[in-house]
């Protein structure tokens, strides 16, 4: 039976002035820090008309930045999805020693400054780096090239999927997996038929967050990119370059693309949540019929 909505009872509600103050404060905060900058980006982007806006986006350097950003995301997001699922599975479904330590290490990329992370890869793969002799021998370029961008982005975005899934998987326990194995399913089959469907929406949400960060990452990528226009500048780096040239209309035009990505992320997330609510509601309706 659903629990009655107690927030409507006058005995539980806060007095009117306090409610007004809290709601107004929240709206003001959201408006000032989220809505206003978004509007500002769009207004600035279109300040010199649609033609300038379009030109800033189809210009070769901008197009190359778009493709590069999509390319980096296309490599890092699948890798971090697989890594995140595997890690969450290992931590949440296996009561092994040291799992708390691993769970803490997962968060490391969040606690390290992205710039430091970028520097780390320069120290490993750069001119004076550890792997330089071997890389030179095989003519592989990591720093100031695509692999470096991928490595830096991988590091920075690695926690998103795992962090989303670990609490979810821990709350679900491993009884369903045990049941599947007792019924004769292999580990692989159990994962695909039982574990994965149960974490589907959490996984989708984690991937969305991971993708948003992969495309929007600035600090780590900035260190390893080398800022070669048309070659190693991702979208955020391209925005910075345009901004530094006082080309505000173009900078904001390209930035509006990233803002669009954020909006798309929000829409997909809302759709995912709506979908879950629909399923729940359908389940409740069916139950009420009987």
């Amino acid at each position, binding site marked *: 039976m659903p629990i009655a909505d107690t927030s409507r009872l006058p005995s539980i509600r806060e007095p009117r002035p306090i409610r007004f103050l809290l709601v107004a404060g929240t709206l003001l905060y959201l408006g000032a820090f989220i809505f206003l900058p978004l509007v500002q980006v769009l207004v600035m982007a279109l300040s010199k008309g649609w033609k300038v806006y379009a030109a800033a986006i189809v210009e070769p350097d901008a197009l190359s930045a778009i493709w590069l950003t999509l390319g980096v995301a296309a490599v890092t997001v699948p890798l971090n999805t697989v890594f995140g699922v595997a890690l969450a599975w290992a931590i949440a479904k296996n009561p092994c020693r040291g799992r708390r330590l691993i769970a803490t290490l997962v968060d490391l990329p969040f606690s390290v400054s992205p710039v430091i992370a970028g520097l780390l890869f320069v120290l490993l793969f750069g001119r004076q780096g550890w792997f330089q002799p071997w890389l030179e021998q095989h003519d592989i370029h990591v720093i100031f090239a695509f692999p470096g961008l991928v490595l830096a982005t991988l590091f920075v975005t690695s926690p998103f999927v795992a962090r989303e899934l670990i609490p979810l998987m821990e709350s679900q326990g491993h*009884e*369903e997996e*045990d*049941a*599947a*194995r*007792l*019924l*004769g*399913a*292999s580990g692989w*089959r159990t994962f695909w*038929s*039982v574990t994965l*469907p*149960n974490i589907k929406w959490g996984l989708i949400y984690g991937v969305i967050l991971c993708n948003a960060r992969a495309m929007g990452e600035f600090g780590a990528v900035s260190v390893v990119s080398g800022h070669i226009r048309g070659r190693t500048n991702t979208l955020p780096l391209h925005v910075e370059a345009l901004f530094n040239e006082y080309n505000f209309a173009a900078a904001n035009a390209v930035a509006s693309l990233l803002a669009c990505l954020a909006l798309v992320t929000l829409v997909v997330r809302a759709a995912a949540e709506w979908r879950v609510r629909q399923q729940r509601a359908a*389940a409740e309706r*069916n*139950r009420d019929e*009987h």
Partner: protein
Amino acid sequence: MSIEVRNVSKSYGRFQVLRDVNLDVNTGELMALLGPSGCGKTTLLRVIAGLETPDTGTIRTHGEDATSRPVRERKVGFVFQHYALFRHMTVFENIAFGLRVRARADRPPETEITKRVRALLDLIQLDWLAAHYPDQLSGGQRQRVALARALATEPRVLLLDEPFGALDARVRTELRRWLRRRHADLGVTSLFVTHDQEEAIEVADRIVVMNAGRIEQIGSPAEVYENPSSAFICRFLGHVNLWPDAVDAPGQVRLVRPHDCELLRADPGMGALAITVKAVRPAGPLVRIEMQTPGQVDFLEADLPRETADRLNPVVGETLYARPRRIRVYPS
């Protein structure tokens, strides 16, 4: 012999859960593993299923050593206390799962799978719920689906972990009577864990009583109830009074079941206890009298048949004489 457990011990860190357990379950019997929480009964069940590994000892099912065999090859049916149904699959798909995951060579054709699932849905009387999801079912319905799912692969051994534990009293009684009636037709050897002595007595052919990782007694419900081998079992199976003793008998516990207690108006002498009536509670066919002896804090209980109670008509506060028909004496 369907299940043979030999010298099985297991500990978690310094806590020993199972101490040298030996158990035989006969083919086709319905056996209850009874004990207080933390006595190791669930661990023993999980060891037999292969969900836990014993530190020492062996498990044999149908004469084959299963100790080191992986869970999926043991072919035991297992029913979890909280059902563990696959939440994203319909009732039909839940029951069909065990058949669908078989290797192509052993997998029955789709028509056969449908037929078998339908038959099981009939058996659990839930055919009208085939297309529903687990979260649309009541607890009793879920548990029946879990049972059907475990039976779908036609296991010869069925293990049930507190199968009725999460259900309300009425559904629990219904479901365990249903299981009792159906068990003979199923042709499966079953071992179920419970902490409810009434459930064990009502359902099982034989009862295994466990305490602190050891098996204390194995026997039919009547044997275990009538001749408990220890004070622990006597106390665990049904109500019992710790009988105060007039004669000094150090190192002994004297236990009297409430229904073995006779109440008299006149002092019959030898062995009778003067008591004060504290409460009279009619409970179905019996009337429970709560009483106290001078100098004792704990209440004693006597269960009288309704007729006897009516004839005696005890009044709260009056003094009567309690005489045990049967005293069980154990070393303390």
